[in-house]
């Protein structure tokens, strides 16, 4: 066994850069994913068959294919077909948004559907239109239901960014790979990588639990 404690220190500047990328990709990706997810979640709930089917296909395709396949398809496949190349970081944002968007769509659909049907009827019976009933009555209750699964999805997406190392996005894993290529100290590098992930995921979990408790869900 030869453990090199200095390497654990030396890798830190690499991982700090990596952490920044991991963080920013997750934040931007999931934020855009929320917009996509809300739109497609409501589309799935639409009375119109065509609209709900379109949203259903999106969700099924994303859920039914591995993230790695989606990354390669978008970053290598599509540019090859139409003849342009895309910056890896941009690909990373897009993939994470599309991927988390599908899961968030399901969270939105589930949240809205789990609000008691009587709430909708109460709103309608008072003369509120569909939009007003959704906005003032259903949505506030649905959001509360959505918070735990959403927090879960946030952490999953954060960890999913690690797969972007395969297209050379400079996130945590990629940075560790770079460091290992120079030093061959893989144990130290990947041990520290795990530590860095936990630096974000543990506070995120705590924040989530705190929010859940405050909202009484």
């Amino acid at each position, binding site marked *: 066994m030869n453990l090199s404690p200095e390497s654990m220190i030396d890798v830190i500047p690499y991982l700090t850069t990596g952490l920044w990328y991991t963080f920013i990709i997750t934040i931007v990706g999931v934020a855009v994913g929320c917009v996509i997810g809300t739109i497609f979640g409501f589309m799935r709930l639409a009375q119109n068959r065509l609209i709900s089917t379109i949203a259903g296909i999106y969700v099924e395709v994303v859920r039914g294919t591995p993230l790695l396949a989606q990354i390669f398809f978008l970053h290598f496949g599509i540019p090859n077909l139409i003849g342009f190349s895309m910056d890896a970081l941009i690909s990373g944002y897009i993939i994470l948004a599309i991927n988390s968007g599908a899961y968030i769509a399901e969270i939105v659909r589930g949240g809205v559907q789990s609000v*008691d049907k*009587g*709430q909708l*009827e*109460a709103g*309608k*019976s*008072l*003369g*509120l*239109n569909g939009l*007003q009933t959704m906005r*003032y*009555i259903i949505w*506030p*209750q649905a959001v*509360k239901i959505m918070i735990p699964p959403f927090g879960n999805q946030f952490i999953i997406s954060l960890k999913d960014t690690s797969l972007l190392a395969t297209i050379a996005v400079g996130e945590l894993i990629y940075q560790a790979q770079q460091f290992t290529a120079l030093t061959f100290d893989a144990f130290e590098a990947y041990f520290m990588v795990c530590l860095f992930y936990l630096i974000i995921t543990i506070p995120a979990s705590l924040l989530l639990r705190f929010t859940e408790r405050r909202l009484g869900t």
Partner: protein
Amino acid sequence: MIKVSNLHKSFGDNEVLTDITAEVDAQEVVCVIGPSGSGKSTFLRCLNRLEDITQGEVLIDEVNIADPNTDINVVRQDVGMVFQHFNLFPHKSVLDNVMLAPTKLKRDSKEEIQSRCLNLLEKVGLSDKAEAYPSSLSGGQKQRVAIARALAMNPKVMLFDEPTSALDPELVGDVLAVMKDLANEGMTMVVVTHEMGFAKEVGDRVFFMDEGRMVEEGTPTQVFDETRHERTREFLSKIL
């Protein structure tokens, strides 16, 4: 006030209301009774189109709500509804429950609406609960809030869908008392109920429904004491 002609309602192939014709005059209290599954709740829900009307006409104050071109949201503002399971908004305080619809739909100032809603809470005996949340109320209190909420839009008609069926027996009285006051003030009411005492005492007329049909209608005396139809007699003998 309400005029129903040849109303049919089906869920798929299953016809749950068959050729119902009925009228409710202004200021009249009509109690709808009948065995479970007889279609009385569905009938009530057709009166504000919470159920789509398969066939026939339902006129509320001369407006045919079966017509798809009718703006049902406007009609519903005049037709209050109280549900068996209250359906209060759990994320809003009692006062906000009552104020929500008028705040979003009426042009009155917030102060006017608030003072009117506080009066309504006083009327149902719950002014001390204005800031409470529904989860902290008893069933009877919840139902009285629900009545105040429906009244907040100043409806011309109130529909009650088994308003006391989900309540503990000792809480039923408070809710019925509020409904009785309302009836005495001249509110037009259609009440689906199993409370025969209420139907006899407060009802101006009683509808008896069975298997989706209007079997018998008349004053409480006619229906309860001078029963004409065998099916009605059978039902009444079981529950009285």
